[in-house]
């Protein structure tokens, strides 16, 4: 009964205009692969969805509950490795493997949480990093299990079947597109539900002031672990998806601190503790780093006549800018922290408010 009235309250709070925009976006996303055929465009969209899943998962723990984990590669890698190992060594299709991955990630989260959640502030951050590093080194050192530093290459992905009916064979990017889209919508929906529930209130209270929250009847350990479990499960789904989609994983990609940092950045750049933050962060980061990776920017500079292809600068850019996408992450973080501490979203919101104020 109360669930229904809750749902009604949420529904009533949605404005018709917002609903229309949301439906329009949803329909265009669903229709996108039918209209645009370029696999590269599909690829970019898939990367954006993947980034949304990663960012939104972290957001639940970092943004809403205020626990700054810089070790989420642990869960991403757990998902990736579980799914990949089951698929390559046990012929378990990834549709089942990824749930095994999520379960393993939750178990891992509870172990790591039981250690890290006793610590606060910078000590929590350090412990989360150490835990993820232990996992990375373990994956490197258990060659019999994980193939160590050489990583695991996916040879072929079994088609998704219901009974004998083949739903899809994953030969093009389109099935990946829809899978990633559904996951991204799912985690956004979960975040919405959490935000509008008791759980969300408790998470945010913990973020604002742990001691005050504790004194108001909030079981800190239980709620931090719940938040981490949700976050870890979805992060591991992202990892599983990544493994199957890219077809290759090794400890230095899926379990590295760089991965952990990247997950945090998606949120920070967009704006933490908001539903749209990770979406905005992904929309900024993915196209930017892809443009660099594929040398689009150099090409653009050259064709705009700003640098000549033969000049040493042009040659240097052409040679090196492709490797610079992480550099851009670094620069973005510094700029965001110094000039937009509430992320791009908060920055824009404040700009709009300032303009409204000056107009009125």
């Amino acid at each position: 009964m109360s669930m229904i009235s809750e749902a009604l309250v949420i529904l009533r709070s949605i404005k018709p205009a917002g609903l229309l925009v949301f439906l329009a976006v949803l329909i265009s996303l669903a229709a996108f692969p039918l209209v645009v055929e370029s696999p590269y465009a599909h690829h970019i969209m898939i990367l954006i969805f993947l980034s949304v899943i990663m960012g939104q998962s972290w957001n639940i723990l970092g943004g809403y509950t205020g626990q700054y984990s810089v070790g989420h590669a642990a869960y991403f890698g757990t998902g990736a490795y579980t799914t990949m190992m089951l698929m390559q060594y046990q012929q378990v299709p990834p549709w089942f493997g990824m749930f095994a991955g999520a379960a393993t990630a939750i178990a891992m989260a509870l172990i790591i949480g039981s250690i890290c959640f006793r610590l606060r502030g910078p000590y929590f951050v350090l412990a989360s990093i150490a835990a993820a590093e232990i996992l990375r080194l373990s994956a490197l050192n258990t060659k019999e299990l994980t193939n160590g530093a050489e990583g695991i290459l996916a040879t072929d992905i079994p088609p998704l079947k219901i009974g004998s009916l083949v739903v899809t064979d994953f030969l093009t990017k389109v099935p990946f597109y829809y899978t990633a889209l559904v996951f991204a919508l799912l985690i956004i929906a979960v975040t919405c539900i959490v935000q509008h529930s008791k759980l969300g209130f408790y998470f945010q209270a913990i973020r604002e002031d742990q001691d005050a929250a504790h004194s108001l009847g909030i079981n800190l350990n239980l709620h931090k672990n719940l938040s981490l479990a949700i976050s870890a499960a979805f992060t591991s789904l992202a990892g599983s998806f990544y493994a199957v989609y890219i077809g290759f994983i090794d400890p230095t990609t899926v379990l590295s601190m760089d991965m952990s940092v990247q997950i945090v950045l998606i949120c920070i750049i967009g704006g933490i503790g908001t539903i749209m933050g990770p979406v905005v962060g992904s929309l900024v980061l993915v196209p930017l780093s892809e443009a660099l990776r594929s040398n689009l920017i150099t090409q653009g500079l050259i064709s705009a006549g700003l640098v000549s292809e033969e000049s040493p600068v042009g040659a240097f850019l052409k040679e090196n800018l492709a490797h610079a996408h992480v550099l851009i992450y670094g620069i973005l973080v510094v700029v965001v922290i110094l000039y937009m501490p509430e992320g791009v979203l908060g920055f824009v919101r404040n700009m709009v408010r300032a303009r409204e104020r000056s107009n009125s």
Partner: protein
Amino acid sequence: MDSASMQPVLLFLQSLISGILVGGVYALIGIGLTIIFGVMRIINFAHGDIMMIGMYLTFNLFNLFGIDPFASVLICIPLMFLFGGLLQKLFVNRVLNALPQNQILLTIGLGLIMSNTVMLIYTSDYKILTTSYSSGSFKFMGISISEPLAISFIITAVITGLLYWFLMKTDMGQAIRATAQDRQAAQLMGIDVRRMSIISFGLGAALAGTAGALISPTYYIFPQIGSTFTLKAFVITVLGGMGSVIGATLGGILIGIAESLGAVYISSGWKEVLVYMIFLLVLLFKPSGLLGKSRV
């Protein structure tokens, strides 16, 4: 000598000694981090990357001008001091009152910029700095000791001694310690805490850069080497108690020994796991550090 054929006692002593020698350099990195934390209450996630810059600096001084890596310490210290001071003045000073997580992210961002800029210039290939003594060693009571490690340990000891003298005996050192103890009180006493912050970050960077110079004859040099050392520096400072210089010195040596013994008696692949396990245990059971007073 092949370690498998050594007598157990000699093997133990040898790995203990090489652990202590490496630990000396670790201590330098840790001391730098702990000074920065003590004065600013900021955990510098770019610390390993600053060390990496010191490595490349040394590498270039050696390759371009033929300057010996140990001699280059004399150039490294002032340059890295300036570099660190600049970082503090331009960036870190502006987030001193920000949320701790934003401070952490800022230094992470700075670290990413450093490592990736170096990668753009030098590619991510491993570089080796080979000196005439790089693989040299001498025997001492049957124990073989690596020459570059021994020299770097001596230099480390001298620098640490000078640092203690600076912190304890000079006016500026006392001002730094006062700032670390109580920023507000120091400010009321007329100490220019912003300047002390710049000097402290400079010192921290100089120490990290020096450590980079000292290990460059024995380690591969590559842009991403920083993050492992950042983590190691955390372990060392937490072990010794955040903000304690003596603690960081002991912590560094302890981690050097743990790694060296771990590599011999467990396996070199698992030695770092051992270090992080120790780290977590200390965080859990003695968060104020092995030397620090317990809080409650």
